[in-house]
Protein backbone atom coordinates (compact mmCIF):
# COMPACT_ATOMS: atom_id res chain seq x y z
CA UNK A 1 0.00 0.00 0.00
CA UNK A 2 1.52 3.29 -1.02
CA UNK A 3 0.49 6.54 0.62
CA UNK A 4 -1.73 8.81 -1.45
CA UNK A 5 -2.91 12.33 -0.75
CA UNK A 6 -5.93 13.46 -2.76
CA UNK A 7 -7.29 16.97 -2.71
CA UNK A 8 -10.62 17.95 -4.30
CA UNK A 9 -12.79 20.95 -3.45
CA UNK A 10 -15.37 20.25 -0.72
CA UNK A 11 -18.13 21.48 -3.00
CA UNK A 12 -18.12 21.99 -6.78
CA UNK A 13 -20.54 23.66 -9.16
CA UNK A 14 -22.36 21.61 -11.76
CA UNK A 15 -20.70 21.86 -15.18
CA UNK A 16 -17.79 23.92 -13.89
CA UNK A 17 -14.22 22.62 -14.04
CA UNK A 18 -12.53 21.93 -10.68
CA UNK A 19 -9.00 20.88 -9.89
CA UNK A 20 -8.00 17.43 -8.65
CA UNK A 21 -4.58 17.21 -6.99
CA UNK A 22 -2.97 13.85 -6.29
CA UNK A 23 0.32 13.13 -4.55
CA UNK A 24 1.50 9.51 -4.61
CA UNK A 25 4.42 8.12 -2.63
CA UNK A 26 6.38 6.04 -5.09
CA UNK A 27 10.14 5.68 -5.75
CA UNK A 28 9.68 6.06 -9.56
CA UNK A 29 12.96 4.21 -10.13
CA UNK A 30 13.97 5.09 -13.69
CA UNK A 31 15.81 1.86 -14.56
CA UNK A 32 18.88 3.89 -15.61
CA UNK A 33 20.71 3.72 -12.30
CA UNK A 34 23.11 1.18 -10.86
CA UNK A 35 23.56 0.17 -7.25
CA UNK A 36 26.85 0.18 -5.32
CA UNK A 37 27.67 -3.28 -6.72
CA UNK A 38 27.29 -2.05 -10.31
CA UNK A 39 24.07 -3.98 -10.86
CA UNK A 40 21.30 -2.23 -12.79
CA UNK A 41 18.39 -1.27 -10.56
CA UNK A 42 15.23 -2.50 -12.32
CA UNK A 43 12.75 0.09 -13.51
CA UNK A 44 9.84 0.60 -11.14
CA UNK A 45 7.55 3.45 -12.05
CA UNK A 46 3.83 4.06 -12.02
CA UNK A 47 3.14 3.45 -15.71
CA UNK A 48 -0.60 3.89 -15.87
CA UNK A 49 -3.00 6.24 -14.12
CA UNK A 50 -6.74 6.28 -14.66
CA UNK A 51 -9.32 8.58 -13.11
CA UNK A 52 -13.02 7.75 -13.39
CA UNK A 53 -16.07 9.64 -12.22
CA UNK A 54 -18.89 7.18 -11.45
CA UNK A 55 -17.35 4.67 -13.86
CA UNK A 56 -16.80 7.12 -16.71
CA UNK A 57 -13.14 7.67 -17.59
CA UNK A 58 -12.16 11.32 -17.26
CA UNK A 59 -8.38 10.89 -17.46
CA UNK A 60 -6.27 8.03 -18.75
CA UNK A 61 -2.56 8.73 -18.54
CA UNK A 62 0.50 6.72 -19.56
CA UNK A 63 3.53 7.64 -17.46
CA UNK A 64 7.17 7.25 -18.49
CA UNK A 65 10.58 7.46 -16.80
CA UNK A 66 12.00 10.90 -16.03
CA UNK A 67 9.17 11.65 -13.64
CA UNK A 68 10.51 12.36 -10.16
CA UNK A 69 9.81 10.22 -7.12
CA UNK A 70 6.53 10.90 -5.29
CA UNK A 71 4.73 12.18 -8.40
CA UNK A 72 2.25 15.02 -8.14
CA UNK A 73 -0.61 15.01 -10.66
CA UNK A 74 -3.00 17.88 -11.13
CA UNK A 75 -5.85 17.98 -13.63
CA UNK A 76 -9.30 19.45 -14.20
CA UNK A 77 -12.58 17.57 -14.10
CA UNK A 78 -16.14 18.67 -14.84
CA UNK A 79 -18.99 17.02 -12.95
CA UNK A 80 -22.70 17.38 -13.62
CA UNK A 81 -23.87 15.61 -10.46
CA UNK A 82 -22.40 14.32 -7.21
CA UNK A 83 -20.45 11.10 -7.48
CA UNK A 84 -17.31 9.22 -6.64
CA UNK A 85 -13.93 9.89 -8.18
CA UNK A 86 -11.85 6.72 -8.42
CA UNK A 87 -8.10 7.04 -8.98
CA UNK A 88 -6.39 3.85 -10.07
CA UNK A 89 -2.70 3.47 -10.76
CA UNK A 90 -0.47 0.55 -11.72
CA UNK A 91 3.29 0.26 -11.33
CA UNK A 92 5.93 -1.90 -13.04
CA UNK A 93 5.64 -4.57 -10.36
CA UNK A 94 2.02 -5.01 -11.35
CA UNK A 95 0.70 -3.50 -8.14
CA UNK A 96 -2.61 -1.74 -8.68
CA UNK A 97 -4.18 0.53 -6.12
CA UNK A 98 -7.44 2.46 -6.17
CA UNK A 99 -8.27 5.48 -4.05
CA UNK A 100 -11.68 7.13 -3.82
CA UNK A 101 -12.77 10.70 -3.31
CA UNK A 102 -16.33 11.97 -3.02
CA UNK A 103 -17.43 14.78 -5.34
CA UNK A 104 -20.19 16.93 -3.94
CA UNK A 105 -22.01 18.98 -6.60
CA UNK A 106 -24.13 21.88 -5.38
Amino acid sequence: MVRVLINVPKQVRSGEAFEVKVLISHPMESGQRRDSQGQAIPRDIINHFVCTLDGETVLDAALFPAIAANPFLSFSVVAEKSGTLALTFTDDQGVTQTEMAAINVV
Partner: protein
Amino acid sequence: MIRGFALVIVALLLIGAGDRRSGYDDASPDTRAMQDDDDANPGFLWVKQGENLWSEPDGKAGKSCVSCHGDATSMRGVATHYPAFDGKRGVPITLEQRINFCRTDHMEAPAFAWDDDRLLALSALVGTQSRGMMLAVEPREPFRSEGAALFNERMGQLNLSCAQCHEERAGQRLGGSRIPQGHANGYPEYRLEWQGMGSLYRRLRNCMVGVRAEPFAPDSRETAALMLYLAVRANGMRIETPAVRP
Protein backbone atom coordinates in the same frame (compact mmCIF):
# COMPACT_ATOMS: atom_id res chain seq x y z
CA MET B 1 11.68 30.58 34.93
CA ILE B 2 13.14 28.59 32.06
CA ARG B 3 10.48 29.93 29.74
CA GLY B 4 11.26 33.50 30.75
CA PHE B 5 14.93 32.84 30.11
CA ALA B 6 14.10 31.49 26.67
CA LEU B 7 12.04 34.59 25.86
CA VAL B 8 14.96 36.86 26.71
CA ILE B 9 17.21 34.84 24.42
CA VAL B 10 14.69 35.05 21.61
CA ALA B 11 14.31 38.79 22.10
CA LEU B 12 18.09 39.26 21.96
CA LEU B 13 18.40 37.13 18.85
CA LEU B 14 15.56 38.89 17.05
CA ILE B 15 17.69 42.02 16.91
CA GLY B 16 19.95 40.32 14.42
CA ALA B 17 17.17 38.41 12.68
CA GLY B 18 16.62 40.82 9.80
CA ASP B 19 19.51 39.78 7.61
CA ARG B 20 19.03 36.07 8.12
CA ARG B 21 17.52 34.23 5.19
CA SER B 22 15.73 30.91 5.38
CA GLY B 23 16.59 28.37 2.68
CA TYR B 24 13.06 29.14 1.47
CA ASP B 25 14.09 32.68 0.52
CA ASP B 26 16.96 31.36 -1.59
CA ALA B 27 14.95 28.62 -3.31
CA SER B 28 13.50 28.97 -6.82
CA PRO B 29 9.86 30.11 -7.25
CA ASP B 30 8.92 26.55 -8.29
CA THR B 31 10.38 25.04 -5.14
CA ARG B 32 8.74 27.71 -2.99
CA ALA B 33 5.38 26.99 -4.66
CA MET B 34 5.74 23.33 -3.73
CA GLN B 35 6.27 24.22 -0.10
CA ASP B 36 3.44 26.79 -0.10
CA ASP B 37 0.84 24.26 -1.23
CA ASP B 38 0.34 21.50 1.34
CA ASP B 39 -1.33 19.37 -1.35
CA ALA B 40 1.77 19.55 -3.54
CA ASN B 41 4.36 19.28 -0.74
CA PRO B 42 5.59 15.67 -0.73
CA GLY B 43 6.66 16.12 2.89
CA PHE B 44 3.02 15.67 3.82
CA LEU B 45 3.20 12.05 2.67
CA TRP B 46 5.49 11.55 5.67
CA VAL B 47 3.28 13.64 7.93
CA LYS B 48 0.35 11.42 6.95
CA GLN B 49 2.41 8.30 7.67
CA GLY B 50 3.31 9.84 11.02
CA GLU B 51 -0.38 10.35 11.83
CA ASN B 52 -0.95 6.64 11.31
CA LEU B 53 2.11 5.63 13.37
CA TRP B 54 1.15 8.02 16.17
CA SER B 55 -1.68 5.78 17.36
CA GLU B 56 -0.11 2.44 16.45
CA PRO B 57 1.04 0.49 19.55
CA ASP B 58 4.55 -0.96 19.34
CA GLY B 59 6.97 -2.68 21.72
CA LYS B 60 6.60 -4.84 24.83
CA ALA B 61 4.83 -2.14 26.86
CA GLY B 62 1.98 -2.16 24.33
CA LYS B 63 1.97 1.63 24.13
CA SER B 64 1.63 4.05 21.24
CA CYS B 65 2.49 7.76 21.21
CA VAL B 66 -1.19 8.45 22.02
CA SER B 67 -0.93 6.51 25.32
CA CYS B 68 1.21 9.26 26.87
CA HIS B 69 0.82 12.31 24.62
CA GLY B 70 -2.79 12.11 23.43
CA ASP B 71 -3.52 13.82 20.16
CA ALA B 72 -0.54 14.91 18.03
CA THR B 73 -1.76 18.52 18.24
CA SER B 74 -0.61 18.47 21.91
CA MET B 75 2.92 18.61 20.44
CA ARG B 76 2.47 22.22 19.31
CA GLY B 77 5.57 24.21 20.22
CA VAL B 78 7.65 21.19 21.18
CA ALA B 79 9.89 21.33 18.12
CA THR B 80 10.87 24.94 18.88
CA HIS B 81 13.04 23.73 21.81
CA TYR B 82 15.03 21.02 20.05
CA PRO B 83 17.84 20.02 20.27
CA ALA B 84 17.07 20.06 24.00
CA PHE B 85 19.42 19.13 26.82
CA ASP B 86 18.69 15.70 28.22
CA GLY B 87 19.71 15.49 31.87
CA LYS B 88 19.79 11.70 31.93
CA ARG B 89 22.28 11.49 29.08
CA GLY B 90 24.11 14.75 29.63
CA VAL B 91 23.95 15.92 26.00
CA PRO B 92 21.54 17.91 23.83
CA ILE B 93 19.36 15.52 21.84
CA THR B 94 17.40 16.04 18.64
CA LEU B 95 13.70 15.46 18.19
CA GLU B 96 14.49 12.23 16.34
CA GLN B 97 16.63 11.01 19.24
CA ARG B 98 13.88 12.03 21.68
CA ILE B 99 11.39 9.91 19.72
CA ASN B 100 13.80 6.98 19.78
CA PHE B 101 14.34 7.35 23.55
CA CYS B 102 10.55 7.38 23.97
CA ARG B 103 10.53 4.09 22.09
CA THR B 104 13.31 2.41 24.05
CA ASP B 105 12.51 3.84 27.51
CA HIS B 106 8.71 3.94 27.57
CA MET B 107 7.44 1.72 24.75
CA GLU B 108 10.16 -0.93 25.17
CA ALA B 109 10.44 -0.99 21.39
CA PRO B 110 13.68 -1.02 19.38
CA ALA B 111 15.00 2.36 18.27
CA PHE B 112 14.64 3.28 14.60
CA ALA B 113 17.76 3.77 12.49
CA TRP B 114 18.56 7.47 11.95
CA ASP B 115 17.38 7.36 8.33
CA ASP B 116 14.28 5.20 8.90
CA ASP B 117 11.23 6.63 7.12
CA ARG B 118 9.08 5.89 10.17
CA LEU B 119 11.31 8.03 12.37
CA LEU B 120 11.22 10.84 9.81
CA ALA B 121 7.43 10.47 9.59
CA LEU B 122 7.02 10.90 13.34
CA SER B 123 9.44 13.82 13.59
CA ALA B 124 7.75 15.45 10.58
CA LEU B 125 4.39 15.08 12.32
CA VAL B 126 5.68 16.56 15.58
CA GLY B 127 7.69 19.24 13.76
CA THR B 128 4.80 20.43 11.62
CA GLN B 129 2.69 21.11 14.74
CA SER B 130 5.08 24.01 15.42
CA ARG B 131 5.01 25.35 11.86
CA GLY B 132 5.15 29.13 11.88
CA MET B 133 6.44 29.28 15.46
CA MET B 134 9.87 30.68 16.27
CA LEU B 135 12.83 28.51 17.19
CA ALA B 136 13.76 29.07 20.86
CA VAL B 137 16.56 26.66 21.67
CA GLU B 138 18.54 26.96 24.88
CA PRO B 139 22.19 27.83 24.06
CA ARG B 140 23.54 25.24 26.48
CA GLU B 141 27.26 25.37 27.19
CA PRO B 142 29.76 23.92 26.54
CA PHE B 143 27.92 22.39 23.59
CA ARG B 144 27.11 25.68 21.84
CA SER B 145 30.77 26.77 21.91
CA GLU B 146 31.97 23.38 20.78
CA GLY B 147 29.46 23.50 17.92
CA ALA B 148 30.56 27.00 16.97
CA ALA B 149 34.18 25.83 16.89
CA LEU B 150 33.26 22.90 14.65
CA PHE B 151 31.25 25.22 12.40
CA ASN B 152 34.37 27.30 11.83
CA GLU B 153 36.83 24.43 11.62
CA ARG B 154 38.19 23.37 8.25
CA MET B 155 37.69 19.70 7.49
CA GLY B 156 38.09 17.08 4.79
CA GLN B 157 40.29 16.86 1.71
CA LEU B 158 38.73 20.05 0.37
CA ASN B 159 39.68 21.70 3.65
CA LEU B 160 36.51 23.75 3.99
CA SER B 161 34.57 24.79 7.06
CA CYS B 162 30.78 25.19 7.27
CA ALA B 163 31.30 28.95 7.70
CA GLN B 164 33.29 29.34 4.49
CA CYS B 165 30.28 28.33 2.38
CA HIS B 166 27.30 29.22 4.56
CA GLU B 167 28.49 32.51 5.98
CA GLU B 168 31.32 33.94 3.89
CA ARG B 169 29.89 32.77 0.55
CA ALA B 170 26.18 32.52 1.34
CA GLY B 171 24.13 33.95 -1.53
CA GLN B 172 26.81 33.13 -4.11
CA ARG B 173 26.49 30.17 -6.43
CA LEU B 174 27.82 26.64 -6.26
CA GLY B 175 27.24 25.26 -9.73
CA GLY B 176 23.64 26.05 -10.55
CA SER B 177 22.36 26.52 -7.05
CA ARG B 178 22.49 29.40 -4.64
CA ILE B 179 24.39 28.71 -1.42
CA PRO B 180 21.94 29.17 1.46
CA GLN B 181 22.86 30.50 4.88
CA GLY B 182 22.33 27.02 6.26
CA HIS B 183 19.61 27.61 8.83
CA ALA B 184 18.07 24.44 10.22
CA ASN B 185 14.45 25.66 10.44
CA GLY B 186 12.62 23.19 8.21
CA TYR B 187 13.80 19.71 9.22
CA PRO B 188 12.94 17.01 8.52
CA GLU B 189 12.63 18.36 4.99
CA TYR B 190 11.84 17.10 1.53
CA ARG B 191 14.86 17.59 -0.69
CA LEU B 192 14.34 17.32 -4.43
CA GLU B 193 17.94 16.17 -4.81
CA TRP B 194 17.24 13.26 -2.45
CA GLN B 195 13.81 12.56 -3.92
CA GLY B 196 12.83 11.99 -0.33
CA MET B 197 12.68 13.16 3.23
CA GLY B 198 15.78 13.68 5.31
CA SER B 199 16.82 14.81 8.77
CA LEU B 200 19.32 17.52 9.64
CA TYR B 201 21.85 14.76 10.28
CA ARG B 202 21.46 13.58 6.69
CA ARG B 203 22.11 17.13 5.51
CA LEU B 204 25.25 17.43 7.67
CA ARG B 205 26.44 14.05 6.48
CA ASN B 206 25.94 15.18 2.87
CA CYS B 207 27.93 18.35 3.50
CA MET B 208 30.74 16.44 5.22
CA VAL B 209 30.94 13.85 2.45
CA GLY B 210 30.85 16.76 0.00
CA VAL B 211 34.03 18.25 1.42
CA ARG B 212 35.45 14.69 1.56
CA ALA B 213 35.56 14.51 5.32
CA GLU B 214 34.73 11.48 7.44
CA PRO B 215 31.18 12.23 8.65
CA PHE B 216 30.60 12.42 12.40
CA ALA B 217 28.57 9.48 13.73
CA PRO B 218 24.85 10.23 14.28
CA ASP B 219 25.08 9.84 18.06
CA SER B 220 28.47 11.53 18.51
CA ARG B 221 29.10 14.53 20.74
CA GLU B 222 30.35 16.45 17.67
CA THR B 223 27.01 15.99 15.87
CA ALA B 224 25.08 17.00 18.99
CA ALA B 225 27.20 20.13 19.44
CA LEU B 226 27.03 21.16 15.79
CA MET B 227 23.26 20.67 15.66
CA LEU B 228 22.79 22.67 18.84
CA TYR B 229 24.92 25.49 17.47
CA LEU B 230 22.95 25.51 14.20
CA ALA B 231 19.66 25.64 16.09
CA VAL B 232 20.83 28.49 18.31
CA ARG B 233 22.13 30.29 15.21
CA ALA B 234 18.60 30.01 13.74
CA ASN B 235 16.80 31.00 16.97
CA GLY B 236 13.92 33.35 16.27
CA MET B 237 13.41 32.05 12.73
CA ARG B 238 10.13 30.39 11.92
CA ILE B 239 9.76 26.63 11.66
CA GLU B 240 8.81 25.46 8.16
CA THR B 241 8.64 21.70 8.74
CA PRO B 242 8.18 19.94 6.36
CA ALA B 243 10.18 22.33 4.18
CA VAL B 244 10.88 21.69 0.49
CA ARG B 245 14.40 22.43 -0.71
CA PRO B 246 16.17 21.96 -4.07
